[in-house]
């Protein structure tokens, strides 16, 4: 079967971003960019399905400016077979990303789509679910284990109270949680080989998708500052402060 993986280019998780001085947007000039950690987990899961003889082909898709090809190449170096880059300059909302991904689904007809559960820049947690809805297929969100069984997939999901297992018909969308797997690193020879793997580029027009804007960014601001408090000398002092100063116990 064919597996499609959606990878997003984001500010690296170690970077602490700040608003621009005019408050119009976040300042991401000269900061380190990486593949969204949840997408790395998605790529890894697809590779494991291929190693287990279940997946035949892995396609890595990313949507954005020319630079997202770096993240597609990373996915190819990890083991994806080919890449698709949807070239757009704007930072799009999840609904528009989902509409573009849906047009790729129509072309490629994968049996399984794996996305991250959340992009760590926008923190939306929407795209996989929206894609599944637009395609009229089921979704296994926040997955910590998946098992493919003939014509369906079992997904163990991380839910508020613990773990839930659901059974989905295929094709389906899975969104990854942190415990699904531990991603590998790309080896140098594989990074070299990835440069030769096929990568197709499409514009939204070529995919027949007309983009629209649903939400305006009015501005950004830093969160309210939290002052560091004091260090106490010992447990006695801590208990005293909590009882008599903060009055919380």
């Amino acid at each position, binding site marked *: 079967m064919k597996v499609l993986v959606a990878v997003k280019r984001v*500010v690296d*998780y170690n970077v*602490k*971003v700040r608003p621009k001085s005019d408050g119009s947007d*976040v300042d991401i000039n000269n900061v380190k960019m990486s593949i969204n950690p949840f997408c790395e987990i998605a790529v890894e899961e697809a590779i494991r399905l291929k190693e287990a003889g279940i997946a035949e082909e892995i396609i890595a898709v990313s949507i954005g400016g020319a630079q997202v090809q770096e993240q597609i190449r990373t996915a190819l170096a990890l083991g994806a077979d080919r890449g698709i880059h949807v070239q757009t300059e704007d930072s799009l*909302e*999840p*609904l528009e990303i989902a509409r573009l991904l849906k047009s790729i689904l129509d072309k490629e007809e994968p049996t399984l789509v794996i996305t991250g559960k959340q992009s*760590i820049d*926008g*923190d*939306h*947690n*929407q795209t996989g*679910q*929206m*894609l599944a*809805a637009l395609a009229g*297929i089921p*979704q296994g*969100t*926040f997955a*910590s284990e998946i098992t493919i069984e003939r014509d369906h997939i079992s997904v163990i999901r*991380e*839910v*508020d*109270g*613990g*773990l*839930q297992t*659901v*059974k*989905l018909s295929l094709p389906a969308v899975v969104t990854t*949680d*942190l*415990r699904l797997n531990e991603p590998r690193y790309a080896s140098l020879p594989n990074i070299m080989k990835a440069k030769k793997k096929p990568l197709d580029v499409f514009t939204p027009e070529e995919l027949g998708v007309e983009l629209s*804007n*649903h*939400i305006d*960014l*009015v*501005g*950004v*601001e*830093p*969160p309210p500052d939290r002052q*560091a*408090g*004091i*260090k*106490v000398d*010992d*447990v*006695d002092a*801590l*208990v005293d402060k*909590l009882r008599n100063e*903060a009055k*919380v*116990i």
Partner: protein
Amino acid sequence: MSTLVIAEHDNRELKPATLNTVEAAKALGSDINLLVAGKDCAGVATAAASIPDVSKVYIADNEAYEHQLAENVSLLILDLAQQHDAILAPATVNNKNSMPRVAALLGVSQISDVISIKADGIFKRPIYAGNVIATVKSNDPKWIVTVRTTAFDACSAEGGSAPIENLEVIHDAKLSSFVKEEVAVSDRPELTAAEIVISGGRGMQNGDNFKLLEGIADKLGAAMGASRAAVDAGFVPNDMQVGQTGKIVAPDLYIAVGISGAIQHLAGMKDSKVIVAINKDEDAPIFQVADYGLVADLFEALPEFEAKI
């Protein structure tokens, strides 16, 4: 027109997150209706009907909704979307699962995890693990919103008497089915609603050592949480993870033990009223947000703390 609020429940009890979401909905200034979708959930609907300021409670009581399968529940909410110009749901796992489907089927955006709502469609929401707060304006004809419950007070649960309307329609998309659930049962308060939370990190070394926190949690009536590192290492189950990609908490008192204070962890707890950190490394970043920091070996400090409270 009116606002629809999705009730959070487990078929038996109405969860407090619903009350914070109703409070958030009041900012929109229109009628507030509630949806209780589940199975054998009449008691939940009765509880929902006694929330003051609720105009109507819809109940959809059917097997198709018992386990909150997104493929089914989203179609039910879609039915009700016609009569409502905003749909608000607490940002729980159930709604994170279903609401984007509703938005996509309506062809509108979803605004996730809002911490402020204005009647003119201006919302505030944290992005980048809470390092930045974005103000956004929706241009859509309908607003699909998930609410960060810690940012809103809980409204009163008693005093109202809204009518309850039965929804007979059954949406079974036949795309998904429930197999089983492993739900941790605990007498402790729920993590996201507790007044005191005590969390352990990698410094706890193993799952057994979490007993050191349990004794304190029992004495304080606290809920227990954990860092991602403690969950990944298998010390404790996933539902205890606090942070950017886990649960968001804002109790009166948060005690972080053996947790370094990575931004992804802070994202889930830095709005707590009072923060205590116990860590043996005096330079641990957690001390930058702690009101009271104790530099100590947790294996010595915890038994003493338990004895003295």
